């Protein structure tokens, strides 16, 4: 049921939420998360996302399936971009729909936590000082722990 896309092109957040809402009156709660390229100190020239074609789609579908198993979702979309992006550009979009807000919020946060630690993407930052791969955050591993039960 989940819709998963790995793409170079930008996405339209409003249009994606609309697509999930289209024609349905049983879902009362829609949560979206949009992750964008953040330039912490004005030095970032671009961000390049590499990924593992094939595994990426499989892993995102697996993560979405796990969310659907845990929460009564009426819809779920994950879009993740790859390629070279500029500061402020969209990177990732997660949308969840449910009858109640709690499920929609929790599932969206769960999807992002799992995506951050399991989806095979790697970020490389280009700055005036050169290019550097972004290090994984232990925060992200910690975030996963709260979903273990």
């Amino acid at each position, binding site marked *: 049921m989940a819709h998963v896309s790995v793409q170079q092109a930008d996405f339209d957040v409003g249009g994606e939420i609309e697509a999930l809402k289209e024609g349905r009156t049983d879902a009362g709660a829609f949560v979206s998360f949009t992750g964008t390229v953040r330039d912490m100190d004005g030095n970032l020239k671009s961000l390049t996302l590499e990924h*593992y074609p094939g*595994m990426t789609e499989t892993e995102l579908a697996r993560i979405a399936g796990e969310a659907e198993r845990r929460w009564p979702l009426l819809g779920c979309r994950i879009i993740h971009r790859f390629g070279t992006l500029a500061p402020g550009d969209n990177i990732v979009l997660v949308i969840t729909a449910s009858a109640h807000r709690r499920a929609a919020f929790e599932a969206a946060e769960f999807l*992002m936590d799992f995506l*951050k630690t*399991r989806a*095979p993407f*790697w970020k490389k930052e280009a700055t005036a000082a050169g290019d550097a*791969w972004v290090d*994984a955050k232990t925060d992200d591993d910690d975030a996963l722990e709260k979903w273990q039960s």
Partner: protein
Amino acid sequence: MQLVYFAWVKERVGKSEETLHLPEHVNTVRELLSYLSGINEIYAHALAEPEKLRVAVNQTHVKLDHPVIDTDEVAIFPPVTGG
């Protein structure tokens, strides 16, 4: 065995993929990393810090004691940083 590399592992190995005939004594991911490290200095450097490496076998995340066979696709990469 099909080997694929990503991010700085790919840069250090100097290629994104290669085909390897798996020696008989290599039966787990840990043994595979050890075997590759012994090939030459390039692999030794690329795979020097196993705690900073992650491995997928046939596009599924696995641990170091996961078995490998010659028909597997094995990917070696740093911890992921998407999202």
